[in-house]
């Protein structure tokens, strides 16, 4: 598994994941710079993603939707704040209506992705921050029903002494 480190910061509701990939930084950057590659990695196989708009530049927007097994679409958007190709980019990730108008009732996460050379490959650091625990929960509740991991986690709670 390429994941080398995971940090949960409960106070700031931030998840940081570090992964090492056996490919140059420019190759990993390409995954995000090419909408056809991005959609291959963004959604799980049961909820494939389709990237519609893709402007990976400061002030630009990336829009996407994920299609569920029943054909229902869940739309989302990235609002890109900074881009330092091929080293890092930062964006807000939120939910949208089907026409990609941001849905202000649903939480937005702040994300920073950085890529640095490491042992001939790339060390990628992904940071996602949610403003409130409720927001984080809401996002997971929506996404989680898709994957049923919620049920599994709740079983863990049931099993806990």
């Amino acid at each position: 598994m390429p994941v080398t480190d995971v940090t949960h910061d409960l106070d700031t509701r931030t998840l940081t994941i570090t992964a090492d990939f056996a490919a140059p930084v420019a190759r990993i950057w390409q995954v995000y710079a090419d909408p056809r590659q991005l959609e291959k990695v963004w959604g799980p196989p049961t909820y494939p993603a389709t990237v519609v708009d893709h402007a990976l530049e400061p002030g630009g927007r990336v829009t996407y939707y994920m299609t569920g097994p029943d054909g229902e679409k869940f739309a989302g958007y990235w609002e890109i704040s900074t881009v330092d190709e091929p080293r890092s980019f930062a964006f807000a990730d939120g939910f949208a209506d089907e026409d990609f108008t941001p849905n202000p009732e649903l939480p937005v996460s702040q994300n920073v992705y950085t890529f640095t050379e490491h042992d001939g490959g790339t060390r990628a650091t992904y940071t996602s921050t949610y403003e409130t625990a409720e927001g984080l929960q809401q996002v997971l509740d929506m996404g989680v029903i898709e994957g049923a991991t919620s049920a599994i986690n709740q079983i863990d709670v049931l099993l806990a002494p």
Partner: protein
Amino acid sequence: MNGDDEDRADALFHALADRTRRDILRRVLAGEHSVSALAEKYDMSFAAVQKHVAVLENAGLLTKRRSGREQLASGDVAAVRSVSSLLTELEQVWRGRIARIDELIALDSTKED
């Protein structure tokens, strides 16, 4: 796991094992809905939707309150979740994405061979 917990687990999995109920849950987690507003979303009778709502309620996933003649339903997964378990779930989403990036770049070297 004692008998009560086994019963809760049964109720939980039973509740989530149905497509309509998962859809209802997704809606009520995003905000409170009246049962009649929910019923309009599905091609089934009010009684059938009401039954689905009752199954979710029995599993502890949804709570109902009365407001005049309306029954209002909202999602209640919060009771059993901590910030820590939430971040763990988010981590799983991320691990999935990272595994897919790894698979994608592995295809590069296959093509070169």
